[in-house]
């Protein structure tokens, strides 16, 4: 009805935009694949024809520590967003707002203390004593068993369950 008519009026530029965007991209890729020449050479298929040769795979393993650092960074970085938005409205919010904000900062600080105490801020955290002892045990067992068990150990150390 009226509602539907109004909707179609506001929607058609979006549809047009979508269609023209798809059309333009399709035209660019389609034309160049039809008109452009094709050559199948060893170096020609590499990502950077004139740059450094790619080595290895992108699926590399890297230290889980990077992930932890990234997460902590995002957490405390997001806090700044709240600080800024509070700063804009600080006079209007008055003392009640100040109290609430101090509470929020206190919680963040508590989180920081927690992370500090569990060793998340150290690049090579000191594991709890029990875990260190277990790790030594696992390494010893692995070394004793030799090369053949490395795959099983890398997956999920089954020795833990037996101990």
């Amino acid at each position: 009805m009226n509602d539907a008519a109004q909707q179609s009026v506001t929607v058609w530029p979006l549809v047009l935009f979508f269609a023209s965007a798809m059309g333009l991209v399709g035209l660019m890729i389609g034309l160049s694949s039809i008109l452009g020449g094709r050559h199948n050479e060893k170096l020609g298929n590499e990502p950077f024809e004139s740059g450094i040769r790619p080595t290895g795979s992108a699926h590399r393993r890297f230290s889980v520590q990077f992930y932890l650092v990234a997460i902590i960074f995002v957490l405390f970085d997001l806090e700044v967003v709240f600080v800024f938005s509070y700063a804009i409205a600080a006079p209007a919010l008055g003392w009640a707002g100040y109290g609430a904000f101090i509470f929020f900062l206190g919680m963040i600080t508590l989180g920081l203390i927690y992370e500090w105490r569990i060793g998340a801020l150290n690049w090579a955290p000191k594991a709890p004593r029990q875990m260190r002892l277990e790790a030594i045990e696992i390494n010893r067992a692995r070394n004793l068993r030799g090369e053949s068990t490395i795959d099983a150990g890398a997956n999920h150390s089954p020795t833990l369950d037996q101990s």
Partner: protein
Amino acid sequence: MQIVAILAPLIVTATIVLTIGAVAFTRSHRIMAGLSSTGLVLALLGLIPASITVPIQVTPLYIVDGFGLFYMALILIAALISAILAYAYFETQSDYRAEFYILLLCATLGALSLVVCSHLASLFIGIELVSVPLYGMVAYAYRDSVSLESGLKYMILSGVASAFFLFGMALMFAASGSLTFTHIGQNPGGSQLLLLGVGMLVVGLAFKLSIAPFHLWTPDVYQGAPGPASTFLATVSKVAIFAALLRFFQTSPVAQNAWLHVLIIALAFISMLVGNLLALRQNNLKRLLGYSSIAHLGYILTAIAAGGPLAATAVGVYFAVYILTSLGAFGVVSVVSSPFTGTEASDLSNYRGLFRHQPTLAVTLAVMMISLAGIPITFGFIGKFYALLVAVNSGLWWLVAALIIGSAMGLYYYLRVTFILFGAYEGDAQKSLTESSSRTAIMALSLLAALVIALGIYPTPLIDLVNVAGIAVPA
């Protein structure tokens, strides 16, 4: 007045702050478990002064009423039992035990806020606050790849369900210009958009509740999660989300829609049949309980489909049944198995002849199974009776048929477990359960079994309580 009304969630919040502070300085398992269970008990006591103030609107987001307080009590009891089970379960683990209690408390806080929400925004915050700590809890036995796998499955699928939920919220806001339950569907415009939105909301909630076409994650996650986490997932998160769904359907004008009514009936019908059929040939007790929870959610959904004043009573009674029996059943599994002293003992063969060496646990599990099957003199019978009553009262004969067929199928697999418990014992030496932590858990579980039988014989006090705890409709 408003502060008194939300005393219980405030106490839980304070406990969370306290436990995070404490864990930075001491990692004593006993202190953490003690601190969190004390907080939960205090929150339970905090419901008593709150009951004088209800019903009261606390900010536009929450409405605290008798209904909310009743479900808060159920949630706090379930969380307390989960904490006791966790104490027994993680006692033998050597590292990082304390964080489980923080996650458990956070999820409990989310559940507490869910049962009193009157606004889609608070509903979403509550659901996320329940779900996000649960990812961690499900994957908590992280050295066991099964636990990690189930945590990952739950996280990804749950994220998809949340996306559905959010999109539904956006559509409903577009159609009705408000996110308050009582305003959605009030004005007649944009009804198709509104129905699409409600449909997506139902998809998101049905996923979290593992109602039948959205149930596929349930058995895997229940099986892989550590015992106390499965217990929490099967009780607290289910109750909280279902209470929010019930409040939405009872207070929002959009729920009057006939099409939505058919949708709920179809979901209930499919859940009852699928859950029971899939449970028939299960040999893993945790998976069996997962499928049976799908069927039980179908029974409870019958009450929502029926609607009317009796529906809230039926849901309340059935959820009290479901909570007590699920806590007991999952609790026994959790006590019997601890992955840090061996593999998780959830296969039915692990329970063959349990009565010979752990008579208390075996009798508890048997009582819970009989109650889940709905046999008289247990509380389960009362719950099933109420579900049948509301279905017959509103003439939903398809659902009545599914309920009867489902219960008949249920008898087979529940009683099969019971027979196995009392069968001949032929296993090797089991985990010794003489530690004090396990003894506390066993004591709590046998108390639950006694309660299930006592309420089965004399259910009047609980039914009265549920009848008093009505949903308040804000003006």
